[in-house]
């Protein structure tokens, strides 16, 4: 029997006909981007080395946002350790020189508004030049305000931004891998904690557990903050871990700002059989920048140039 295939990667339908935005040479020089050498993805990295990568991601988040003059600071900074561990600690298979390689593991950012951390992660891995980070949210940039697959940015598996949808897409990918293609690819998806109020999260969780998708690992960025306030004031979510346990997930609760704990969590998730994993990663929104830490008012705004300068000196 035949397989009906179409070329589906990369899409470039979102390009509106004129040129891509490019940052000025002065800006490139200011951030030292021309000399940047991408970090490798290896289980051999020490915790200290992964923390260094996380800090590099954080600095890039600040630069992206201050140049964009809009966007989300808190969640991206808070989750940088998760991204550094997942992408550089040997837990995800990818090839930056062949970004649409069939055998790659998938990552779906269900919390689409957190894309500055994903873009910074991808640039630190070498999926595209760091200079492109400075085009976030600009006209014709591949770095859309929320991820758009139509821009064809290497490493972006799906458009996301309507909360609650990315996890369902990740479940579909995991279903494809485990039950249709029967390969060993793994699928990761990160949701915000406020995001899990969305009903589709729990539908997706039910489906993932029903089909025993042990190749699926979801991460909840549990920072207790959302745009309107503390999560438990906006909508009580606790006990988050117990909810996923009740949905037949293997649940790992860990300090999401500890590289060592995240490493253990991802390593444990890899060994789980017969059920999907949910890592409830307890993080601080705005981690690493003193005036942003654990303050929900930093959910959806960028730093001013003055604040960015302070932040960059703190993020060493």
């Amino acid at each position, binding site marked *: *029997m035949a397989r009906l295939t179409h070329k589906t990667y990369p899409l470039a339908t979102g390009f509106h006909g004129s040129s891509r935005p490019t940052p000025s040479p002065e800006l490139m020089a200011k951030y030292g981007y021309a000399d940047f050498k991408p970090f490798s993805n290896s289980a051999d990295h020490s915790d200290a080395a992964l923390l260094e990568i996380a800090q590099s991601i954080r600095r890039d988040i600040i630069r992206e946002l201050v140049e964009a003059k809009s966007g989300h600071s808190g969640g991206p900074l808070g989750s940088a350790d998760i991204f550094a561990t997942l992408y550089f600690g040997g837990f995800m298979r990818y090839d930056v020189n062949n970004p649409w390689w069939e055998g790659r593991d998938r990552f779906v950012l269900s919390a689409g508004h957190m894309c500055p951390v994903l873009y910074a992660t991808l640039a630190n891995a070498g999926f595209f030049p760091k200079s492109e980070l400075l085009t976030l949210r600009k006209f014709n940039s591949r770095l859309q305000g929320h991820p758009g697959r139509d821009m064809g940015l290497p490493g972006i598996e799906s458009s996301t931004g*309507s909360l609650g949808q990315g996890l*369902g897409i990740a479940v*579909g990918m995991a279903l494809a891998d485990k039950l249709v293609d029967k390969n060993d690819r793994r699928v990761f998806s990160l949701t915000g904690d406020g995001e899990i109020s969305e009903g*589709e999260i729990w539908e997706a969780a039910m489906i993932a557990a029903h089909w025993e998708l042990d190749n699926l690992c979801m991460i909840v960025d549990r920072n207790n903050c959302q745009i309107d306030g503390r999560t438990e004031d906006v909508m009580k979510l606790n006990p988050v871990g117990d909810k996923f346990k009740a949905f037949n997930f293997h649940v790992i609760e860990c300090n999401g700002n500890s590289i060592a704990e995240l490493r253990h969590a991802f390593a444990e998730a890899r060994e789980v059989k017969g059920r999907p994993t949910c890592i409830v990663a307890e993080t601080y929104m705005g981690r690493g920048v003193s005036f942003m830490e654990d303050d929900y008012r930093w959910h959806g705004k960028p730093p001013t140039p003055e604040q960015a300068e302070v932040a960059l000196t703190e993020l060493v």
Partner: protein
Amino acid sequence: MSVTAVKESSMVNTASTNGQMPRYEMHGKKATRFGFGEGLVVLGERYDNVVALGGDITGSVMTSYFKEKFPDRFFSMGITEATATLVATGLALSGHIPFFATYGAFASCRNTDMIRISMAYNDANVKIGGGHAGISVGEDGATHQALEEIAIIRVMPNMTLVVPCDFNEAKKATIAVGEYYGPCYIRFGRSDVPSFTHEDTPFEIGKAQTFKDGNDAAVIACGPMVWEALVAAYELEAEGINVRVLNMATIKPLDRAAIVKAASECGAIVTAEEHQITAGLGGAVAEVLAQEHPAPVEFIGVKDTFGGSGKPDELMEFFGLTSKDVKAAVKRAIARKR
């Protein structure tokens, strides 16, 4: 082949309106949902990456045929229409051709956000089957009588929307939708409706077909209203009125050329659909004509009301969706010609 190239090559016009028009006769009655179910099995036989997702009503929207034949490629999603659409998107982004069918009321209305962001914006190769279209659903009443899918789906970029007119066309359209790249929605009904096209009647996504020639007025119809339009046109022939009947099975991409041609050659248009007129086929045709060839248009469809319980036939009559209504509309349209 690029995605764009696939789309364009699928739209080459091969249908011909020249020569003798066959006269369409009813050869039995069968619901279009059975055509969907059978077409899906054909796709399953042809391609091993066609998969189906169930939303608990598989025996009603006929994904049950696929489930029986290909149990390894059928996945139950429970009653989670929205998330089933997301899971289908994930499958499509992994190179599969997933079909998910449920009642149109849920497939379109409940799923609007999923279709917009995940399916359409991703240009994911997902195929949604929306059953229980229109008021001919009958006894289940307004909650289950989908009257909004054309309006919802045609506003979404990247989407393709097909509304087949009878069993044979539903089967062909399902196969065509499966072989066509891109996010698609196919609309079909619950109740038996006249079968009148044949296995060899041409069908092509994006192309209207002329089922009857005529130059006094043109009826542009989709779904089971095509048959009502044909009956009206044959009856009007006896009165010396020559009505063209266009089967507009693809609502998106819309065959604008066929609409403009009909308006310029006939001078009066009637649209007929088992759907809300607002933003439906009628709205779509009016948009084209307002811009390219203004002409009087009369609309047959549901007029901004919900449906209700009843026998399909009595509902179709009450809501003004019969050949009699089409005939009256044709006369009104002709009377408005200058």
